């Protein structure tokens, strides 16, 4: 984002430091003449300038409330609700870990007020988060679209859009109940980026998670790391972090959603990161055989039906060069971990009411086996980034 506000008083020195650090962003900003009200960065706890200040203070404050309310919904009321779920499941005669089938969990819960009031809170937190972001960004819609238009042709880095791309139905859902999903809102990249920070309880602010992940991406055994691809790259947080770790590598990111890629490209350019983003399908990337040293997929596969996952894995094998590394990060499947009854109930909510349409199918699959079936060699001893909800796995293409 561009055209920062003038800072006042004691904040000026801090602003000056950031202006110097992000000099390249200033240069990128000069390509546009549009003006956003109150657009400034960084703000509040966003101390590194990777996530810019929202255009209006009230919008930012509402998001802060939503963050706090979501924390409370999950960590305070949520814990009480989870205990209640397990208690009800036990009373119904089941063990709670591993969980009985979800239909049995739901029957045990019945119309329990604690559980459903908690679910109401969690769901509403998600809804008011999107409402605030969609309303706030759209209040300045023309300015943001002009900003994206100007950034499309700016560099460093490149952006390829394909208006004729045949987009399959499975990608068209409003995942996380984000209005318009990843393809339907021209400002979807902005909305997603700020929303997902709240949803992940601030894990991905300033790209912290992506930067941590980039640090452990395995380099092929021969040390060659000339070309890198992230599939389902979204707003390109991971390619940005990878470019920082491997400045000499030719870094690519592809995604089905043009609004996501446009925002990602603008952000990468403003941060002076020379990455290439392209609107392509992961099942049919169009890249040459054996053309990448490393391919990653950051929380992509739980958004994909299993049949499409098989096609994507075959495509990954095709475009990886022999000895190349595949390093996906995603939720654990049921073959990797079995949730408790309350955990299973939360997953059900995520699927049904947070519109994670393909998550149940993903969790029920044996993703490790699918990689092996695609001809990739899984190395379960490789470095992995373990988080509460997801983990990474390493596989290689045989030499």
């Amino acid at each position, binding site marked *: 984002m561009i055209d920062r506000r003038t800072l006042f008083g004691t904040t000026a020195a801090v602003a000056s430091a950031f202006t110097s650090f992000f000099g390249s962003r200033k240069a990128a900003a000069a390509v546009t003449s549009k003006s956003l009200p109150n657009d400034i960065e960084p703000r509040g706890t966003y101390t590194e300038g990777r996530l810019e200040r929202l255009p209006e*203070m009230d919008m930012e404050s509402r998001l802060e*409330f939503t963050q706090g309310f979501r924390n409370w919904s999950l960590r305070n009321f949520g814990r009480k609700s989870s205990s209640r779920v397990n208690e009800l499941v036990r009373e119904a005669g089941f063990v709670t870990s591993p969980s009985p089938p979800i239909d049995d969990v739901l029957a045990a819960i019945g119309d329990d007020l604690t559980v459903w009031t908690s679910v109401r809170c969690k769901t*509403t937190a998600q809804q008011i988060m999107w*409402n605030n972001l969609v309303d706030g960004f759209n209040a300045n819609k*023309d300015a943001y*679209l002009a900003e994206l238009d100007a950034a499309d042709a700016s560099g460093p880095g490149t952006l390829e859009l394909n208006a004729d791309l045949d987009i399959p139905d499975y990608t*068209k859902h409003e995942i996380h109940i984000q209005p318009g999903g990843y393809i339907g*809102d021209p400002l979807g990249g902005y909305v997603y980026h700020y929303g997902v920070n709240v949803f992940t309880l601030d894990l991905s602010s300033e790209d912290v998670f992506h930067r941590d992940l980039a640090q452990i991406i395995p380099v092929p055994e021969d040390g060659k790391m000339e070309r890198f691809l992230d599939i389902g790259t979204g707003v390109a947080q991971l390619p940005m972090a990878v470019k920082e770790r491997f400045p000499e590598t030719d870094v690519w990111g592809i995604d089905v959603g043009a609004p996501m890629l446009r925002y990602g490209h603008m952000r990468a350019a403003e941060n002076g990161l020379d990455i290439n983003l392209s609107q392509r399908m992961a099942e049919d990337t169009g890249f040459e055989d054996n053309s990448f040293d490393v391919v990653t997929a950051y929380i992509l596969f739980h958004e994909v039906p299993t049949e499409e996952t098989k096609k994507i894995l075959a495509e990954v094998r095709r475009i990886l060069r022999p000895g190349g590394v595949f390093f996906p990060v995603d939720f654990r499947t049921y073959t990797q971990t079995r949730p408790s009854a309350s955990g299973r109930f939360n997953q059900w909510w995520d699927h049904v*009411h947070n519109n994670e349409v393909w998550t149940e199918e993903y969790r029920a699959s044996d993703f490790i086996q699918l990689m092996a079936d695609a001809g990739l060699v899984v190395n379960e001893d490789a470095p992995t980034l373990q988080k509460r909800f997801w983990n990474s796995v390493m596989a290689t293409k045989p030499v």
Partner: protein
Amino acid sequence: MTEGSKSKATHREDFVPPQTEDVFLDNAALDNVMSTVIALGSEFWALQKRMNVMETLLEENGSVSKEMVEAYRPTEEQSAAWEEQRDRFINRVYGFLQNTGTDSKTAG
């Protein structure tokens, strides 16, 4: 959408909204009232935060303008204190929602 903007061609209208109704309580009206009450909390917090900034600016400068409020950047200490204030507000006001008859009646 700006007429003639390249943005016009970069998004699609055929996205698929959620197919599930999110009614969890006795009736949709009760769900809606709860959502409205929660949403009002976010509007209240926006006003509270604005008040905090105005009070700080008045203490520091003796005057305040809309531009000064919008541009204000809290210190780390202020951010931490206001976050705690927010969390106490949420616990104090919404803690009642936990009183569902299955245990103690104390808010929070």
